[in-house]
């Protein structure tokens, strides 16, 4: 069985989930179970199913250059319990460069190896914040092949979208302004600063 584990803290609409949807399409014919580790608590049922997985693909967002803390907490809780043969990782970055996922992928690789698993492959997806609006990253198929063939690749694979960085930056910043307006804010409100003298921080 292959477990596809969404490690985003978001309940719905996570980019980590979108990337797993892309991946799942390439894994037809395999027994697949989807899991969501969006909280600190792993239910006994989920744990039971997870322990049956021989291959696990974790998909998660990059948080401050590393693993999101609730996800790291879950990895700690699962130490010595999960015995997968192979572990794969997808880390999506809000930044343009997929290579910024390298430290988070490295931590996941060390965790996998400490569980005596083989780390199969790691994808660093740049501009991951736009996964639901963008076409499927070409490297997803590469990962699917590695999962299907139980094959380990030597390096992490980084992806950045097929449009320039300035366009991603401009679009993402426009997106923030749009969301701020929806919340009744003006663009300059985004610059709010903490004032230690203020009574209402």
């Amino acid at each position, binding site marked *: 069985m292959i477990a596809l584990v969404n490690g985003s803290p978001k309940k719905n609409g996570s980019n980590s989930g979108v990337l797993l949807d892309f991946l799942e399409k390439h894994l037809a014919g395999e027994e697949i179970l989807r899991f969501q580790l969006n909280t600190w608590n792993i239910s006994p049922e989920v744990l039971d199913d997870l322990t049956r997985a021989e291959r696990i693909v974790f998909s998660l967002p990059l948080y401050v250059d590393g693993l*999101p803390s609730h996800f790291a907490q879950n990895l700690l809780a699962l130490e010595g319990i999960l015995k997968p043969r192979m572990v794969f990782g997808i880390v999506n970055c809000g930044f343009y460069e997929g290579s910024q996922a390298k*430290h988070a992928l490295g931590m996941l690789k060390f965790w996998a190896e400490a569980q005596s698993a083989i780390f199969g492959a790691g994808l660093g997806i740049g501009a991951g914040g736009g996964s639901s609006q963008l076409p499927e990253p070409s490297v997803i198929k590469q990962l699917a092949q590695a999962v299907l063939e139980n094959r380990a690749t030597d390096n992490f694979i980084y992806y950045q979208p097929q449009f320039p960085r300035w366009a991603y930056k401009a679009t993402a910043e426009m997106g923030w302004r749009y969301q701020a307006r929806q919340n009744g804010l003006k663009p300059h409100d*985004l610059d709010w600063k903490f004032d230690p003298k203020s009574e209402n921080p």
Partner: protein
Amino acid sequence: MDLILHDLDEQSFSTLPWLNTHIAFGPNTRLHYCEGCFDCWVKTPGRCKLKDEGYAIPHKLSQAERLIIVTKLFHGGPSPMVKRLIDRCLPFFHPYFAIRNGEMHHKERYPQSFKLVFRFYGSAGPAEKDLALGWALAMAVNCNTPQPEVHFYENVSDLVMEVAK
């Protein structure tokens, strides 16, 4: 002022000779993890929606001269406890982007900068230490701070002894 984010028990923490005025957040801090909702960027900019003991962390960071991170190594990264404290710094950053070291990062919300100090403890091989060093350097670029100070110790007693020297 130094801002200390750590995972030491009370006794070890109190043994350390903290020379400067400091504010510390550690295992006794009651805080939820960052859920990545981005309210701190687009709804209540600079402020977290979670009004727990982690709420003040980004505000203290904006006043700090040094950010000192003391953490047990967890597979080449910080411990889940310390990462929880670090992730709650998100309101410190501005949603807009800036290009630094040829990479995209977040624009600063605050003009002033602080110095980063990392004290990792726990037994680890060279590859794991290399990863932790790489993560520390990446964090410094992300925070737009100067070259960080990075130290490794075999265990907490070594850390306490070395820092006390």
